[in-house]
């Protein structure tokens, strides 16, 4: 308890708590600007953090990190452009709800879910960090492979519409991830002798292109079509009332709990990341929605404004933030690329994350931990202030102008990642490809998951087999690798359920000549 008090007393120094609040506001803005994410923001901030005391630098980073995960939902809902990659799935139901005139409700669900996920995650960091760090250590190459398979399988349940196109999309992502020098053999693959491709296609510009630039093309085409048909360009949805009612809150409690649990578990595991967390929890929420609510009077279909479709990914991505600090603070192992940047900020001030941080700079270590809790408490009112002031005025700007500004910001963000003009081309080409996929109705989600998980899948498979001497049984060994065996069993369950669903669907279709009252193809 003493140490927690030490954390609070460090945090509540006037300068530090103020900076944390500034960080939360800055993070909301950073998160809600497509093309700029917390990664890019930290890379720009770390050089400046040299000049300020470590307490303030780290409080600012905690604030930005927590709030950016929440801020990404704002443009996702308003204009279907995710502000960060982790709001990718929020854009689907969120924007659908906004187009039905309930943008305020969608935003409010998103923010509340983020805060709940974030608080759950901070409590996990505060109470269970050492235990969970030991759990994370059990993840070796075998378990990482099984985890990647589970992550990829999570998307199967979402492909009820067109399985083939989903598989094509996942393959596009996996193949794109092979570009660069192979970690396993050290030989170049598809680098075309370009030094820019040695480490693979630069990831941040690629993501910015896939969801930012592509969405700009879509908005441009919308405007063009409206102009041609002679109608006035329709405005953006109005934010409207931000209330969503206790009944809905009660209904979302199970979704929040499950998504926050998934987010926390994934966050603790090094290398898994926010994208895997949002897909896994979105998939679970979709299953629950189909079971409990689909087809009931007054309910929208999944993907057309279901509140669970907003709550699940937002609670999950915020639950990753604090939990990704568990392995970093307890062991010195960063949970994801953003928490890895905390190492840089600590090193600049002569500190090294891991057990030594608690003995040598305990006040900083505990301040970081409690800062996550306080940042999430500040986040709730801060988000509503930002929505009511900044967002209201930003989204009152004509659509045409907004498209130009966002496109510019996306290209700027791509360039800022390494100050390399090659990145601008990456973002543009990725945008064109993603827009092409949209025209061909190939879903983008599986491709992004393939991109993220491809390298992990490849290296963990080859390293696990290298250690096992080529034996594939290592993945389902219930004695030495029970976690892997369990995750693979769960993944195959996802597949079996999906296959059963498709089978039933096709049977229903063949029976559709007879009048059927209870077969609702969903």
């Amino acid at each position: 308890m003493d140490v927690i008090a030490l954390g609070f007393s460090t945090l509540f120094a006037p300068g530090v708590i103020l900076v944390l609040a500034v960080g939360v506001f800055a993070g909301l803005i950073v998160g809600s600007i497509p093309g700029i994410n917390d990664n890019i923001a930290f890379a720009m901030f770390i050089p400046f953090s040299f000049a300020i005391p470590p307490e303030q630098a780290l409080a600012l980073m905690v604030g930005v990190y927590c709030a950016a995960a929440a801020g990404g939902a704002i443009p996702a809902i308003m204009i279907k452009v995710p502000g960060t990659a982790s709001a990718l799935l929020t854009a689907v139901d969120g924007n659908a709800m906004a187009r039905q005139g309930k943008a305020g409700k969608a935003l409010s669900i998103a923010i509340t879910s983020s805060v709940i996920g974030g608080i759950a995650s901070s409590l996990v960091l505060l109470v269970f960090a050492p235990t969970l760090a030991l759990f994370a250590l059990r993840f070796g190459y075998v378990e990482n492979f099984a985890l990647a398979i589970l992550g990829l399988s999570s998307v199967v349940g979402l492909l009820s519409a067109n399985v083939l196109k989903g598989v094509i999309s996942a393959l596009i992502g996996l193949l794109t991830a092979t570009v660069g020098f192979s970690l396993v053999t050290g030989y170049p693959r598809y680098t075309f002798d370009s030094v820019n491709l040695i480490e693979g296609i630069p990831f941040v510009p690629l993501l910015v292109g896939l969801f930012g630039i592509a969405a700009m093309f879509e908005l441009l085409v919308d405007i063009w079509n409206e102009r041609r048909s002679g109608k006035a360009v329709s405005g953006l949805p109005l934010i409207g009332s931000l209330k969503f009612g206790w009944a809905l809150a009660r209904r979302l409690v199970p979704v929040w709990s499950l998504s926050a649990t998934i987010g926390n578990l994934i966050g603790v595991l090094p290398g898994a990341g926010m994208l895997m967390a949002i897909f896994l929890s979105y998939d679970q929420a979709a299953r629950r929605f189909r079971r409990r609510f689909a087809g009931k009077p007054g309910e929208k279909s999944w993907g057309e404004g279901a509140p669970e479709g907003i709550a699940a990914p937002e609670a999950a991505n915020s639950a990753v933030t604090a939990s990704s600090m568990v392995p970093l603070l307890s062991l010195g192992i960063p949970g994801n690329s953003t928490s890895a940047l905390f190492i840089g900020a600590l090193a600049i001030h002569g500190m090294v994350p891991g057990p030594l941080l608690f003995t040598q700079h305990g006040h900083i270590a505990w301040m970081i931990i409690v800062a996550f809790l306080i940042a999430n408490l500040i986040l709730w009112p801060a988000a509503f202030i930002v929505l009511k002031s900044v967002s209201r005025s930003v989204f009152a700007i004509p659509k045409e102008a907004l498209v130009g500004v966002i496109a510019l910001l996306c290209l700027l963000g791509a360039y800022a990642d390494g100050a390399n003009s090659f990145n601008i081309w990456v973002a543009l080409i990725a945008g064109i490809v993603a827009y092409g996929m949209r025209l061909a109705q190939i879903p983008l989600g599986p491709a992004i998951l393939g991109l993220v998980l491809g390298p992990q899948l490849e290296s963990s498979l080859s390293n696990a087999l290298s250690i096992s001497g080529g034996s594939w049984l290592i993945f389902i060994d219930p004695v030495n690798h029970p976690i892997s065996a369990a995750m693979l069993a769960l993944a195959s369950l996802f597949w079996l359920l999906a296959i059963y669903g498709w089978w039933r669907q096709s049977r229903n279709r063949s029976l559709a000549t007879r009048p059927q009252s209870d077969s609702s193809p969903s």
Partner: protein
Amino acid sequence: MKKAIALLASCLMAGAVGAAAAADFPAKDIDLIVPFAPGGGVDTTSRIIVETANTLIEGAELNVVNRAGGGGVVGQTFASKAAPDGYTVLAMTSSVVTNPKLKGASYSIDDFLPVGLYNLDPSVIVVPASSPFETADQFIAAAKQAPLNIVIAGIGTSHHMGGLAIQQVTDAQFNYIPTKGFGQQLQAVLGGHADGALWPLGEAANHAKTDSVRILAIASDARDEAFPDVPTYQEAGIDIEIWATFRGWSVPKGTPDDVVTMLSGLLQKTYESPAYKKKMSEAGYKPVFRDAKSFKQIIDGYAVLTSNIIEESGLAK
């Protein structure tokens, strides 16, 4: 017309300044090119240097410029093509020596003039705290019986070549487990998912201090003060004198000698500052200094060692 004359005059003056070189160097800000993203080891050490160095020069400043991409090759290539006037300095790592052969980089090591070295990080053999191996002898003996699984940063990285060198001088057999990023490597070692790892001492030190890992031997010509009980490779029966990655400054070929001397002197004065030494040590980097000549010897020695390994193991592209 007035403008044209002013322009001509300033051009002439610039020429004159170029000829006069070091007399009034630096006349403008110097770019220190870090070929990696902010937050990594080279970036952190560069910022610590610049903080002190900027208090030692007048009228100009050193600025860290991050040019990331291609595992360092993008920024290194940029620096190799910069004007040789001393206003572009590369934060040079040992990868500059091997990248032309391993990654197909278009520059060669001869395109750079060494300025000074500020950090030398010897390779170490690390095992998990739970490992049955207490000494390097036991470790090598076991590796002679059956291959040990060794975590490295990637195929063709400096520490991978260091492992191949151990295999050459002993009869040990290693099965390399390439794992990207130090965090993931740490995960594999702490979790006991591999038998050991080859790491830079700087990264291993902080974890050895908390007894989560054990250092068995250091590839250096002398024991490290922080680990007086850990033998050098040669003391442990591995006949390799030094296997170390380095960090230093270099400038493009053709930079005037007196400018190189000035920059080298600046790095030395920075090194002599107690505040700098304290900060570097705290961040986990042992501060050292070698002047241009001695840095050149280290680079040449590393080039000979690695080119043998690269040729014999067929790593070259």
